[in-house]
């Protein structure tokens, strides 16, 4: 039984879309990508709406050199790597963190960076390195961990950072102009931190509608409806349909501790190269927590496995199913690129939940 309000929203969406030219909206964040597919909402969208997945999966946008550096540090003696589970299986040039663990490296999955701080406190004889990937949503937790480590006087806790900012990536995609985007569905959780005004440059410079929505089916449908309405009106506004969580000023407490520990910096993205002021690095006062400094490791060059389209997929230039490796050589059980690994990865979502309307599914290909 379909809940009435969802039915109503789908009807509204069909009505507002009627007789409009095809539109393409980018859901910037991997959480939206997954929610659209997992909830089945993607299958309810009218034919003239296309969703493009953006560079919002933190695992996917971390450049290859970063993965390789993490694996290199993992093989050092008396070193413990703490990571979110997603990063474990991302293939590097010389194996993944999971393979390093099988080879005897101490690699642990944690749910929170504070767990890594605790571990460092309990094991002063080991260097504990936290794999700090993520957008504004997770970076606050990384900052809190650094402050906690400082409070505890730890000299064996480090961050290997690949922290990204959402808006600069959106701006870079628009500036490049290769992907045709009629508007952005902006992530609720990131917006909770940065506030709606963070999207002003997108609206002012590129005149693209931005609608901030949560991750429930109703929120996502309402977000798409508002985007369509703006397109129909030739408008470009920031709309917040998630005011329960997203406040005008964002979350000043989180922003303050982020700014206390990190500073904006140029950052390298997988396949997108270095985007000016698109990342967050440790401030000079907190350099002693930087794993790259401590281990004297360099981030190697970026790289995609031969045939792998992850770099194109994460920019919305290629659909997961159009990658020649999708569900043939590359599957969640044997991922070639990061988009097939991360729980927010577009390829993983397409593989796990994907339904393209023709009942074509990847299950049979994976059974080869």
């Amino acid at each position, binding site marked *: 039984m379909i809940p009435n309000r969802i039915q109503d929203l789908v009807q509204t969406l069909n009505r507002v879309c009627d007789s409009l030219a095809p539109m393409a909206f980018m859901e910037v964040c991997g959480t939206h990508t997954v929610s659209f597919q997992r*909830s*089945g909402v993607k299958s*309810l969208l009218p034919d003239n709406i296309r969703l493009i997945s953006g560079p919002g999966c933190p695992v996917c946008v971390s450049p290859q050199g970063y993965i390789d550096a993490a694996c290199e540090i993992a093989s050092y003696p008396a070193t413990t790597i703490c990571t979110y589970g997603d990063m*474990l299986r991302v293939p590097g040039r010389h194996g993944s963190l999971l393979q390093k663990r099988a080879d005897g490296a101490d690699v642990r999955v944690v749910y929170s960076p504070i767990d890594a701080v605790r571990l460092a406190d309990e094991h002063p004889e080991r260097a504990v390195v936290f794999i700090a*990937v*993520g957008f504004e949503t997770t970076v606050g937790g990384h900052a809190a961990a650094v402050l906690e480590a400082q409070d505890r006087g730890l000299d064996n806790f480090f961050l290997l950072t690949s922290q990204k900012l959402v808006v600069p990536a959106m701006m870079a995609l628009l500036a490049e102009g290769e992907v045709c985007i009629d508007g952005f569905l902006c992530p609720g959780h990131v917006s909770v931190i940065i506030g709606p005004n963070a999207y002003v440059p997108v609206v002012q410079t590129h005149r693209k509608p931005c609608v901030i929505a949560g991750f429930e089916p109703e929120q996502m449908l309402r977000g798409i409806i508002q985007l369509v309405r703006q397109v129909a009106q030739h408008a470009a506004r920031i709309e917040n349909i998630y005011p329960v969580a997203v406040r005008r000023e964002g979350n000043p407490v989180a922003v303050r501790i982020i700014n206390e520990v990190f500073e904006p910096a140029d950052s390298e993205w997988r396949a997108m190269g270095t985007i000016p002021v698109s990342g967050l690095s440790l401030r000079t006062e907190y350099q002693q927590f930087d794993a790259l400094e401590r281990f004297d490791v360099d981030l190697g060059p970026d790289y995609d496995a031969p045939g792998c389209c992850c770099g194109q997929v994460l920019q919305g230039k290629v659909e997961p199913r159009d990658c020649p490796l999708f569900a043939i050589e590359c599957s969640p059980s044997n991922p070639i690129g990061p988009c097939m690994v991360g729980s927010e990865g577009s390829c993983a979502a397409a593989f796990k*939940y994907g339904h393209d309307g023709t009942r074509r599914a990847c*299950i*049979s290909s994976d059974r080869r």
Partner: protein
Amino acid sequence: MSTSIAPRVDTSEAISIAHGGGGEMMRRLIDEHIIPRLGNRFLNPLDDSAVFNPTNKRTAFTTDAFVVQPLEFPGGDIGRLALCGTINDLAVMGATPIALSLAIVVEEGLSFTLFDRILDSVAETAAEANVVVATGDTKVIERQNGDGLIITTAGIGEIRDDANLGQSRIDEGDVVIVTGRIAEHGLAVLSVREGLSFQTQIVSDVAPLGGLVASIFDSGADVKFMRDPTRGGLAGVLADACEASNLSIEVEESSIPLSPSARHTAEVFGLDPLTVANEGKIVVVCPVDDADRVLQACRTHRLGHHAALIGQFKKEEPSLVELITEAGGRRIVQRPYGEELPRIC
């Protein structure tokens, strides 16, 4: 992070290597801790094998190893889990268990208090399921960063004459019934392991299912296939049935029994409840006309109150499990690929 490691005590209150050495210490372990709890006419002689008279019925035989951490979790412990795992593997083949084996590998240093609690739990579960532990073994391994206690059980059971089960029997139009709320075992274990506490604690559903299975057969329904959705969860069983039958399965998400607390906990962990392990549920496939009998049999049994019809087999190409979501959309359901990993955001 894993912080709940089994308590270890450095006194005579703890198991030592000598308890596994085959000598006097080992004999005391058996006489003072095992026989008083698990003793029966097959086990008590402490012979090298238990001896049975063959029956003229078809016999099912199965084995499973258990390594859960923490050893005790809300709703159960490794002892209950080890018995139920094997009993249920027999049950879903239509077999009534005759006897089980129990092999325990203990890490040196495990406290006798905990060891005894787990043995008590084994005894209670065996009594509940009306089955004996007919033979067993204990080994002690050196202290390491291991899991404290590993149990392997095996079991034999007599298959009911009226059981005619097999995925090859599944036809178009047959329905899928699940006997209760899903995902509770996996979420209960994960919650304690990660130190998360919620207002409503999730309790493992681990339970011996022989009685429930008997009720289902006694209802007279033509049960075609049964499986307990343990590791891999409901998604794994559905994917297997779909692949083996070469039919598609259309599943209605809103009819899948799931408690609100399990739904929220799964959300916190970023897990799909369909892929989370159960230890006290059965997926039953039967003809649509027999669905009411199966549902009635389940709902009048204490372990099947929340039984529900969740889906139906369809002849559609290619064969896949398709979920009609609560939002009214459609997506596919795949077998999970190994370890479910905590998400980032």
